[in-house]
């Protein structure tokens, strides 16, 4: 159902051989499209490795590019004539670049600095800039939109969060709106690397091209951390084989780049992510062998799981993976059934031929920046792991630092957008802007979140939030 505008065809050089690519691709996507799924080797045992997350968060796709080591190929745009190579033996010491790197410096000042240009960050930017704040939105990816860009299904929720629109359309609409505003700077390919506590400023670097970086010092009256989350792996023999990847990574390859990451994959995890990715795989012409899940009941919305059941994709509950195997890449997997206590049922093992294993077993909030800031953090499994303590207006224990979206709690893109609205308003108010109508708008957004989470589906989220929500702030 998608149209892909791949742009101009170009040629890159991979391990001495020419590889065709398109200018809109990342290095990792171009390699995957040409059949390369081995991106390197493990340091000690020399096991082949392939990319896992495709969004710049794991380290499985690092390669040497144009002589620069440890380049995250999944978020590096291809350039004509680029030289890409495996890195060998980087276990003992960090490899040095063969060319000198250019580093410029810049000092920037804003009312609100937002880290992450996904649904939460973009919504926060819209709100804060609408109140007159000078806003910077940074993202480590070369394209803003976060994970919205690969969501091709229509969103649930209500009109307030653009229900019925597809995720990538929402990303485009939000970024288009921000582009029209003079008081907003959207800065892609930019990563925050430090926080100066005394002056409350951020250190970040922007990649202006390979080997060309700008070191930024950003002073802001308030900061919003909207850094999203990272897909989890699962422990089983063979989980490092190329072809084993996050379901979201498969989604990126299919829906952003129009690449089939596998022809007959197995998906582990029958929550919303697992079944939505299964559906999108069918749309991409992929035959999903099965979606399996160790739980008794699928955690997905019934409407999502029914959608793939009627298309003939089995959802096997109480099943999990024993191992994935294959020579240099996934060629098969053994799955088995478990009893009520999650113990394997003897004799239930089945070998299935698959060429991909996609893991949809949950996400972990990306809270590294908040840790740097020494924000109060608590381990709350219901919310996805370590998450920051926050007031109702999403201010963390560090005054002037707010959190929104999956970094605050693994939930939905809809709630990320509404949390972004809350944090955006609160951050602008912290910078001395806004009035009564904005207090009202924030309260409405908080009320919407409460109502959304009153669904029986979000009981665990409610219980988790109860553990990390502090007194005070807007209520």
């Amino acid at each position, binding site marked *: *159902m998608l149209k892909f505008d791949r742009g101009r065809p170009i040629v890159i050089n991979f391990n001495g051989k020419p590889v065709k690519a398109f200018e809109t691709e990342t290095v990792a996507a171009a390699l995957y499209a040409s059949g390369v799924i081995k991106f390197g080797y493990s340091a000690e045992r020399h096991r082949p490795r392939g990319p896992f997350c495709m969004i710049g968060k794991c380290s499985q796709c690092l390669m040497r590019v144009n002589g620069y080591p440890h380049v995250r190929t999944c978020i590096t745009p291809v350039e004509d004539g680029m030289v890409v190579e495996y890195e060998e033996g980087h276990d003992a010491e960090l490899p040095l670049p063969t060319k000198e790197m250019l580093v410029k410096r810049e000092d920037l000042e804003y009312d609100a600095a937002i880290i992450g240009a996904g649904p939460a960050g973009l919504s926060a930017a819209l709100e804060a800039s609408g109140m007159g704040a000078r806003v910077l939105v940074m993202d480590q990816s070369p394209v803003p939109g976060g994970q919205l860009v690969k969501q091709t*299904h*229509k*969103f*649930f*929720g*209500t*009109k307030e969060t653009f*229900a*019925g629109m*597809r995720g990538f359309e929402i990303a485009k609409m939000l970024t288009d709106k921000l582009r029209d505003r003079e008081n907003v700077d959207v800065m892609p390919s930019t990563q925050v690397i430090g926080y100066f506590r005394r002056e409350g400023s951020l250190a970040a670097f922007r990649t202006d091209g390979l080997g060309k970086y700008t070191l930024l010092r950003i002073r802001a009256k308030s900061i919003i951390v909207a850094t999203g989350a990272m897909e989890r792996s699962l422990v089983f023999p063979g989980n490092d084989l190329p072809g084993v990847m996050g379901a979201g990574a498969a989604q990126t390859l299919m829906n952003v780049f129009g690449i089939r990451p596998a022809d007959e994959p197995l998906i582990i995890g*029958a929550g919303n992510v697992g*079944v939505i990715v299964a559906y999108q795989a*069918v*749309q991409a012409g992929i035959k999903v*062998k*099965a979606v399996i899940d160790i739980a*008794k*009941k*699928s955690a*997905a*919305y*019934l*409407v*999502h*799981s*029914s*959608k*793939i*059941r*009627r*298309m*003939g994709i*089995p*959802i*096997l*509950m109480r099943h999990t993976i024993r191992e994935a195997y294959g020579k240099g890449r996934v060629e098969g997997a053994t799955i088995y059934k478990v009893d009520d206590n999650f113990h394997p049922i003897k004799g239930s093992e*089945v070998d*299935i031929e698959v060429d991909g294993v996609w893991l949809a077993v949950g996400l972990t909030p990306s809270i590294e920046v908040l840790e740097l800031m020494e924000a109060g953090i608590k381990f709350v499994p219901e919310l996805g792991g370590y998450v920051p303590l926050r007031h109702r207006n999403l201010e963390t224990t560090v005054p002037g630092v707010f959190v929104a979206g999956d970094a605050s709690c693994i939930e939905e893109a*809809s709630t990320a957008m509404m949390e972004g609205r809350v944090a955006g308003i609160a951050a602008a108010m912290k910078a001395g802007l806004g009035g009564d109508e904005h207090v009202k708008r924030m309260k409405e957004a908080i009320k919407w979140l409460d*109502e*959304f989470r*009153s*669904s*029986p*589906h979000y009981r665990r989220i409610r219980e988790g939030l109860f553990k990390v929500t502090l007194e005070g702030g807007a209520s």
Partner: protein
Amino acid sequence: MMPGLEEQRTLESGYVTLDDLRRHGNIPPDEVLESRAVPIFDCIEEIPCTPCRDACPTGAVIMPTMNDKPRVNWEACTGCTLCAQACPGLAITIVNIPFGKKVLKDPAKALVSVPYEILPIPKKGERVALYDRGHRYLGEGEVFSVIRSHKYGTVLINVIVPKEIALEVKFVEVIRDE
């Protein structure tokens, strides 16, 4: 199903039955079914989702809060298909039983509108295989027409099916000659 694996026909694995829908009041009484086109909502969970309600021009989809399950006021519903086009879960089919008698002059047939998002989109006149909620093969049908909605983006395939399976049909696949 792959050898060695047993199919799970359970609600826990995403398989909804007509009985489940009846229990939730999602299947209209026979006299309504026989008299007009009606939406069949495969939506029995309390989830925060409102596009069907928002799309309905006559207020026939009743949903006081965003988490309420949709209930249809059969008297107010005109069978216009907008809810089926809007539903992000592709959960709604429109079953039009009188269509057989009135339009096709064949009372053994009915028209079912099936939401569809896979390329290639079936074309008018094509034969399609009909499947139920668990991908069980039900028989063959014929594409009567295709509704392409610019506003909602989900295509509806209007399929002529045997009347007795109209409530079962939930997915179609074009039959291609080998």
